[in-house]
């Protein structure tokens, strides 16, 4: 069976609906005049399940094949964001920006690992640190707490 858009979307909605509903039944439902924290979630997640199932049903009627997926950027770019998140507090903003720039840029077909890419990323990291921390005053560490620990 070939995966179609509707199968994936229907499965997604149904799954989210089932997960939400199983969590919602443990919240007090209340009555219509005194809605408990579970009242609205149960209505919404049931509707979501029904919608998901209807979309699954629809997938048998019309079949729209999913456009090809370019896996490389879809995995690599979020991963480089993850690296930024891991680095920003222990290592500080400039290093985190540098890592994110180089890692995300490397997913492009036009990227070459040469000194210009690194120099550009370093310059951009310095630019961001001055712009966001010095000029805009965002409370982001320039030198991360881990590096500060090393220095002292």
């Amino acid at each position: 069976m070939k995966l179609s858009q509707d199968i994936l979307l229907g499965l997604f909605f149904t799954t989210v609906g089932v997960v939400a509903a199983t969590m919602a039944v443990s919240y007090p439902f209340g009555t219509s005049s005194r809605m408990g924290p579970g009242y609205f979630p149960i209505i919404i997640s049931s509707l979501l399940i029904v919608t998901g199932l209807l979309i699954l049903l629809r997938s048998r009627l019309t079949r729209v094949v999913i456009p090809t997926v370019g896996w490389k950027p879809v995995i690599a770019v979020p991963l480089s964001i993850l690296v930024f998140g891991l680095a920003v507090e222990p290592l500080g903003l400039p290093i985190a920006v540098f890592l994110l720039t180089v890692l995300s840029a490397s997913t492009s077909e036009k990227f070459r690992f040469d000194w210009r890419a690194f120099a550009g990323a370093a310059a951009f990291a310095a630019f961001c640190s001055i712009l966001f921390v010095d000029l805009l005053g965002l409370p982001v560490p320039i030198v991360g707490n881990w590096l500060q620990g090393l220095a002292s």
Partner: protein
Amino acid sequence: MDIFNGLLLGLSTATTLTNFAYCFFGVFLGTAVGVLPGLGPIATISMLLPFTFGLPVDTGLIMLAGIFYGSQYGGSTTAILMNIPGEASSVVTTLDGHEMAKQGKAGRALAAAAIGSFFAGTVGTLFIAVSAPLLASLALTFGPTEYFALIVLGLVTSMVLTSGSLLTAFGMALFGVVLGMIGTDVNSGAARFTFDSVNLLDGLDFVVVATGIFGLGDVLANLENERSRTATVAPVSSLFPTADDWRRMTAPILRGTGIGVLLGVLPGAGVLLASFSAYALEKKISKHPEQFGKGAIEGVAAPEAANNAAAQTCFIPMLTLGLPGTATMALMIGALVVQGIQPGPEILTQQPALFWGLVVSMWLGNLMLLFLNLPLVGLWAKLISVPYHFLFPVICVFVAIGVYSINNSVFDVYMMALFGVLGYFFKKVGAEPAPLILAMILGPMAEEYLRRALLISHGDATVFFSSPLSLGTLVVAFLLLLSIVSPRFRKVREEGLQDAD
């Protein structure tokens, strides 16, 4: 406070040197980012949000509004010069705008868009100044029943007006409501859908979700057709419309403005509906309908005027009722909440300087757009032609820093990455994310108003049909839903919205 005094107060707020400078700054940055292909207003605003965080509330809001207009207008520039609509409502602009550009009349198309937008912006701002105070005092009489009905109408409109099937849009809206419910229930204090994570107790930040889906999601989608991206920018010629252009575009601008002002107030996808209706109307009443789609200046001026008028008046439901009419307005509410303001009818009475300052700076922002865009169009054209492989790492960095700086939370950065992948998924399965974004803000409001309405009526659901206003609103919502079954409307909707994503 009457309108005149209000405007005076607004003028004194908006023309302080700082506020004026930040308004300019916002318009400039908004346009600069908005012209970049593939970045619509939502992605632009979420990328530029951190610039407003360190500012005082009024300055921040004024700059935010500037960014909003800048990004709207920047989108039109890209639509005309490159045939790439930055957002759904500039799809119509590409039809005749890019056609004009191909004939070497790019400058005149840009001028028509700018002049139309400025005129519409002026009228739209005046309309806000006149009607917002009225509506706000009316809104104070609204009970939870009316609010609930209005929210239902807003959600239904946004579902009917997105491309793709209604069922898909309904699912997206429901998913949005589920996302909105994550966190501590305000009424009972129960933690809902938090997966026992402390980070989710305060709920999922709306800006994080919007940035992930629209900012990062678009990057992921653009990267895979890197090779097929063609970056041909039409050259810009003389910017001055000829006498004939003036003659042809005056009436369309007036009509477009009228349509935009009225439709913008409607909860739902007002901006989109406005530009489509204005285009359709011009084509219908034109003596030369065959010229449309082949570079008719009316086809640029009217939808651009409608677009911008609606972009102004869609602030009305947000400022007076606290209800966002469009996904972009939902993001603006998210940004206001970050600043510590809860939009609603009280804003006008409790913070008049803020409200009137915003109104006046809206007009100033439009004036700046006119003077910024036409002379700087060469700069924008250069910006558009920056290759994507230089651009997207910069976008990644900006969204990452932006999201981190909302709460200084690394968890938000991870969530943004997750929603980026989800946004990509939605694109692949053909699901438009606008209803999700709107529902995420409106869902928790709907729950709260439903709870209050039913509490007052002792659980009697007929209360929604006994209040005339709520009944009327629900009937309109129902008719909208029915209209989609009608084959004629269906055809129009499919034609109009097919390229909208």
